[in-house]
């Protein structure tokens, strides 16, 4: 299969060392394969000998399954050599925060914490969001200060609709809460998130109508509202181009009456269906290219392409294949860049 010109990856020159960041976040519309890309990135980082913390913030809890590991909880658990994972739980995060940051052993004192938490989370805007970002950044800070082993923290972050309010939460809260420990806490969270040497956010999408439209909007509002460095747009599930220009002409000639007659005589009437399948593949691909072109025109970020995988299942094998593709794309891009 050949790759035509509109679809070749482009990179910022700095992307050769994209895994040198200490915090990498992935967002994107639901269903585009964000978790798979996050898992593949973790695998790639681990293969370079890095200690990885993989944070599952996408409450379906299927991130560990991509390593064929059972579900994990809030305590980091090794799911693959070099990769520990945790499932974000805001209530557990609050408990930890109260214990560690404020030295308030709250549990069991003020009635059931669950009730109070529900109240606070329902009443105070962004509480769940800040607890999420707080926990993530706290792990990064612990690692920076040598108290946690992570070389890199990789986050399967919230989907398109939520990620802006999540990343914006520290700033929003700082505006609301002008004094007190929480106000102080937001300072260092903002510092970590807004440092491009430390933190980078990638947007995952697929080359389809709605995901591309949403990606364009998301990137605009991220640029407007959020002070986090944007990395690449990772375009996932890119279909192969079946025919180059010359082969397209040959393919057309195979649809002529004379050719059809020969094909029918040899392989039966079903050849029409086989050709129709190829025709479908051609139009699906053409369609994808048009969306990628639209994305390119609207967004000033480097694009990275990952191929559609014609496979039956998910799991570690697929995660490995995606990691390999990601590595190829990134190193090719770095050479070109």
């Amino acid at each position: 299969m050949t790759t035509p010109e509109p679809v070749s990856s482009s990179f910022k020159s700095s992307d050769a060392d994209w895994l040198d960041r200490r915090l990498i976040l992935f967002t994107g519309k639901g269903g585009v394969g964000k978790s798979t890309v996050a898992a593949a990135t973790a695998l790639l980082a681990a293969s370079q000998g890095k200690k990885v913390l993989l944070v599952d913030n996408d409450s379906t809890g299927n991130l560990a399954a991509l390593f064929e590991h059972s579900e994990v909880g809030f305590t980091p658990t090794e799911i693959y050599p070099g990769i520990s994972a945790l499932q974000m739980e805001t209530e557990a995060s609050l408990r930890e925060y109260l214990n560690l940051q404020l030295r308030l052993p709250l549990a069991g004192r003020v009635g059931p914490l669950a009730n109070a938490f529900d109240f606070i989370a329902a009443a105070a805007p962004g509480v769940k969001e800040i607890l999420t970002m707080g926990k993530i950044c706290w792990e990064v800070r612990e690692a920076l200060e040598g108290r946690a082993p992570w070389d890199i923290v990789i986050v399967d972050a919230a989907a398109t609709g939520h990620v802006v309010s999540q990343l914006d939460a520290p700033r929003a809260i700082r505006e609301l809460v002008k004094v007190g420990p929480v106000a102080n806490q937001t300072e260092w969270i903002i510092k970590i998130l807004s440092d491009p040497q430390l933190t980078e956010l990638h947007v995952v999408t697929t080359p389809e109508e709605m995901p591309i439209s949403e990606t364009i909007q998301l990137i605009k509002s991220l640029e407007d509202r959020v002070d986090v460095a944007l990395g690449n747009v990772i375009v996932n599930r890119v279909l192969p181009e079946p025919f180059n220009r010359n082969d397209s002409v040959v393919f057309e000639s195979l649809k002529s009456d004379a050719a059809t007659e020969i094909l029918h005589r040899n392989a039966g009437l079903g050849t029409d269906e086989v050709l129709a399948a190829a025709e479908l593949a051609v139009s699906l691909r053409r369609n994808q290219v048009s969306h990628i072109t639209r994305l390119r025109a609207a967004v000033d970020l480097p694009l990275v392409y990952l191929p559609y995988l014609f496979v039956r299942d998910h799991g570690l094998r697929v995660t490995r294949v995606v990691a390999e593709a990601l590595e190829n794309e990134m190193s090719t891009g770095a050479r070109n860049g």
Partner: protein
Amino acid sequence: MGKQIPKKISPSGIEALLTTREILIFCGSGGVGKTTVAAAAALAAVQNSNAKVMVLTIDPARRLADALGLESLGNIETRVPDSLLVQAGITPKGELYAAMLDTKASWDDLVVRYAPSQEVIDNIFSNNLYQNITSRFIQSHDYIAMERLFQLHSSGHYDLIILDTPPTRHAVDFLDAPKRMADFFGGRLLRWLTLPYRAGGGRGGRFVNLASRPFFRIADRILGNDFVQDIAEFFVNFQSMYDGFVERSKAVEQLLHDRRTSFVVTTTLEGAPLREAQAYCEQLKVRNLPLGALILNKLLPDFFRTETSISAARVLIEKMPEIAAQLGSDPKVISDADEISRVLTTITSTFTEYAIVAEREAELQVELSGLPEMVATIPLFSDDVHDLAGLGRVGSRLWVS
């Protein structure tokens, strides 16, 4: 190959729901084309019956607005002009309306409706937190969607309202939104928290007692004093609307259980969305909510799995040199045997790759045969559905006359 796809999976049947129900709630995970299918269903209803049909979307990405050819949608109910429909080759019998949920505006409406006095309205609107809770607070979307649905339904303007639900990660959250809201406003915790305010005799006594409660002592330390007061004041004001809210939440909940309401779950035949759809169906059953239909979207065409296509692909692979030679030597075919051989190889390998996906889809359809509900299928179209004509094409798969 050769697995039987259950008979009940046929491209028909949704028309029964479109004619007999007053509310259809479309749910499903992100990326399955739920918004498109919901809009297409509305269009099919308008095309085939003399009904006023409203499609209400909550999606913040304004996808429905794009698909309906409207510049923008808001809380305002907008009629899709017949001329646009006719332009797209659709002859409407009924009238098509669309609206998008504006969470903030809907909350404002609610406050105005239930607040006992103008003073309370002003207090709420000027509260720092109110802005944030209504515009940023994600969970409030779920409730307000239900609320808006109720409002549209009780207006009596529409024969059928189709609700495109937010792409929630927890289906249950959405289903439970009215009850949660009622529980919340009626909750002991909230009463306990706002007690010092009420006991203190309204706004004059607002700071009395607060510091004496351990909860507030801790909350003050964590969140800062002003913030806690804002929270408490906000809830004191909201408390005054308690009766209205609870009554309303109950009415909304009742509407969900009404015979005139059905749920339609949309999914593609991919692992994760399908698991979620199955979970959703389960949850509906547990809650005794009526599941009207399951719609399988974006299925690969049947021709990847027919005996004739599979056998043709096999022969093409096995007899490749011979067939290529025959084609190459035919004076009417302009390419030579090498080129033809290369192209045929691509054709057969493309077929084989897609057939793997088609076969997986077929297996999953068999798995679904356990679900007794009506199932409709919509094929994958080679180009996108992004305009009324495209929606009409999808709609014709839902309404088989």
